[in-house]
């Protein structure tokens, strides 16, 4: 009983209603902020840690990324004639320790974040999917 006698006017609720009304009318920079995801995407930051990519020319297959990985995500496999890392993204923490440790700056983490797939096997990103060649002009 005591609580309502003090709050007869329900001023607090009125204030709240005004706040929500401001949002309905979008007064004072209270505009819609969400994006329509599959149709429009937000820009990811340059440092974003997404799927790994390996510079084909720079990578020497040393395996430092493999030893540095906390979760045994990386395995060095033979591809064509040379050795490259293979990433099991199902286990990847996206911590970026492999990128930090790479002595040749060959391993980069890209802004690719849409990695969901149907099977565990397809989450294993071998060299055929992660290798890239650096453009000479850059």
């Amino acid at each position: 009983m005591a609580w309502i006698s003090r709050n007869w006017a329900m001023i607090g609720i009125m204030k709240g209603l005004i706040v929500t009304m401001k949002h309905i009318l979008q007064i004072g920079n209270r505009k819609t902020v969400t994006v329509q995801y599959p149709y429009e995407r937000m820009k990811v930051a340059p440092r974003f840690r997404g799927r790994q990519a390996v510079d084909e020319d720079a990578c020497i297959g040393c395996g430092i990324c493999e030893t540095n990985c906390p979760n045994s995500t990386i395995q060095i496999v033979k591809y064509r004639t040379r050795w490259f890392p293979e990433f099991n993204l199902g286990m990847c923490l996206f911590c970026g320790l492999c990128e930090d440790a790479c002595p040749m700056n060959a391993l980069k983490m890209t802004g690719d974040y849409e990695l969901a797939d149907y099977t565990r096997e397809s989450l294993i990103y071998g060299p055929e999917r992660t290798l890239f060649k650096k453009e000479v002009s850059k």
Partner: protein
Amino acid sequence: MTTNAYDLIVAILSAIGLYDMILGFFQDIGAEYVLRIIIVLVVIAVVVVFVLLTVMFLSWLERKMFAVVQARYGPMVTGPRGLFQPIADGVKLLGKEDTIPAGADRWIFTLAPYIVFVSVLLVFIPLPFGKSLIVSDLKVGLLYIIAISAITPISILLAGWASNNKYSLIGAIRAVAQDISYTIPLAITAIAVVVFVGSLSMLDIVNAQSGYWFGIIPKWFIFLQPLGFILFLIACIAEMGRIPFDFQESEQELVAGFFTEYSGMKFAMFFLAEYAHLFAVSGIIVTIFLGGWNGPVIPLIPIELTSLVYFIIKTYAVILFTMWLRDTVPRVRIDQLLNLGWKIMIPLALLNLLVAAFVVTAGVI
């Protein structure tokens, strides 16, 4: 002078000169009652279709309103601005597996959602959508509405009990407790209006609100009984079971309350009933306190049409208000709600009734 939708259809048919022909046909085969049944069925079909369309639109409106308040878009993909989202939802719900939990009372479990929906649909019978646009003007209209509303908690209790789930049972018992404690102030405030009108008929209540005081203020009961209006509104929101009084489902505590175990079409029935109830109760508020379909008469356009438009506009205003409120406030606790109902609303409603009775007896108005 037409008084209800049946007469209106007859009048329209007569105006275009078809009625006598059809009537003649049926008289020839000696089955005049078949025509009556057909017309009644047409009226029922129109009302049901109208209610279903409104329900679909309302569910879209609610989500959109919610989204706008929360700086979101809401449904956008199906149709323009996601307008056909309710249809997509309906198709999805139809395709869902219709599960009945082990240990549930199968018959009651299956029956309960339909009872809810039918009991809500019955409320529309004495509700005047516009001049002459009434299924049937019952002489006990208001009493009938309050009585029919009391079926809903019974079916909710059935649903909760039959689910064999503790959350459902708590939700159902909450719903009943809430409904009992809020039907009383609802009825008492409605009686205060009846005291002024002198009739329980919804049509009489609307007619009593036509005209103006001093030429400007419409003779709506909201101006005569502001306290009564507020009490009635709160009781109606509680009756509808919407935030801040949505204990029957209170998602965060009871998962989904009495329809925790429901899925597929049965869930859709509860869903439809909820929005149909929202529309019906808003219509009742409009009819009793906001002048019903009364509004300025526009020449050349038939009054049946303008009155319908006025009614819809007013009803949507009430609905939008409840949605706006829902977006803003959290939920009350069940014991606080019952406290509010029994200790504050009922005494105030009685006071309101007393003042109304005094005013009428003293002949002030």
